[in-house]
């Protein structure tokens, strides 16, 4: 096992909705600086797992520890979460959205919004509101929002779904750079071949449990 500290530690975490268990006693440790690609069919519990780690869902049983044992408030500044939805306002431009979210991180060092947009290959002076963006552009703008706070832990829920090849490639480049910077990445996807250049470990989820951990032997994180 690695001697690196755990960015995320889950102890017998369960999430139950009525008589359906979305997560079943998941005990896991995600080492800091590694990229974990979480695979599994629809309903396997991937999104629930990320939402529980992000603090957006409270586990029914068990506990989640982030970066040792910090309070949720402290940990929040160090997490970036990208979901299926863009988490952006359709009526505002990408730059307006990012300026707004940057203001919510007033006490933490943030990337300038223009720089975050340039990183993901979007033009910061684009006047169109996000509602008129293509799915690929919207997903890249959403990634720029995540990057604003320079998070140490990135929780990315299917970042490559429904986007064009060019957007996927751009996002892969950004994620590869983050991996080189030793950020911890937890990424769920149905396209393992896309995430292969990033992955340190593939995790397989099935019916609310992590059933397999497959470390990738050598991966320099290179994306062409």
């Amino acid at each position, binding site marked *: 096992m690695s001697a690196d500290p755990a960015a995320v530690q889950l102890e017998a975490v369960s999430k139950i909705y009525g008589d359906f268990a979305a997560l079943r006693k998941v005990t896991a440790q995600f080492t800091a600086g590694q990229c974990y690609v979480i695979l599994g069919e629809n309903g396997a519990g991937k999104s629930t797992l990320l939402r529980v780690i992000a*603090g957006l869902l409270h586990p029914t049983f068990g506990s989640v520890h982030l970066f040792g044992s910090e309070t949720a408030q402290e940990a929040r500044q160090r997490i970036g979460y990208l979901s299926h939805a863009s988490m952006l306002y*359709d009526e505002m431009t990408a730059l307006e959205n990012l300026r707004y979210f940057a203001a919510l991180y007033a006490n933490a060092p943030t990337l300038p919004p223009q720089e975050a947009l340039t990183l993901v290959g979007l033009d910061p002076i684009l006047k169109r509101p996000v509602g008129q963006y293509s799915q690929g552009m919207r997903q890249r703008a959403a990634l720029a929002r995540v990057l604003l706070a320079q998070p140490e832990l990135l929780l990315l829920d299917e970042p490559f779904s429904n986007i064009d090849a060019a957007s996927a490639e751009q996002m892969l480049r950004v994620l590869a750079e983050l991996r080189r910077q030793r950020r911890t990445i937890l990424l769920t996807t149905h396209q393992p071949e896309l995430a292969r250049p990033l992955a340190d470990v593939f995790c397989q989820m099935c019916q609310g449990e992590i059933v397999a951990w497959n470390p990738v032997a050598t991966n320099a994180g290179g994306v062409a």
Partner: protein
Amino acid sequence: MTYLRVLWAHLQKDLRLEWRSKDAINGMLFFSLLVVVLFSFAFDPTTAVSRQIAGGILWVALLFAAVTALNQTWTRELRHHVLDAQRMAPAAPGALFLAKVLANFLFVAAVEIVLAPIFIVFYNLHALGQGWLLWIVLPLGTLALVINGTFFGALSLRTRNRELLLPLILFPISIPAVLAMVESTTAILTGEYDPGLWIRLLTGYDVIFITLSLLLFATILHAE
């Protein structure tokens, strides 16, 4: 200082979104104008009767109109899961709540500014009491409506029938405030009795509910 900066960022965003969509103001304006005109035609009141009933009609029209706007105030945050991004940001939840209250206050106040001259013409009104006291009663009454509406709007956010639930919770809890608004307005218009007690009651109501809402809002925001 940080708190004020975050509050300003939320407020600026809400004003910008409303300026671009005009969802809340258009709905409120149309609804309140309709109520005022319909009551005027239905009762065809004399000037003396108008003074007796105008307070009630005005506040009931504003209460119903405000609900249409208050229902949308949080729905906007649910679209594309923007609320999740706000929940994950390290900013104080109270700033989000206060900004929403301020934004809703400004929207309802804008409607009042348009409605007031029409109301005076249709009901042939002039105050027999101390007319300047309306400058105190109107903001206090509006604040009472929007504090509760914003708070209970957030409370009913994750329910399936939130459009129905908001008035069901809001109207009963607003009864003391509505009584104080109507009585103080009627007292000012007729000059028959002193509105002082009702204005004090309205002030107390505002102070109590804004304090309680600020104390409880973080719990509601982070509830599932």
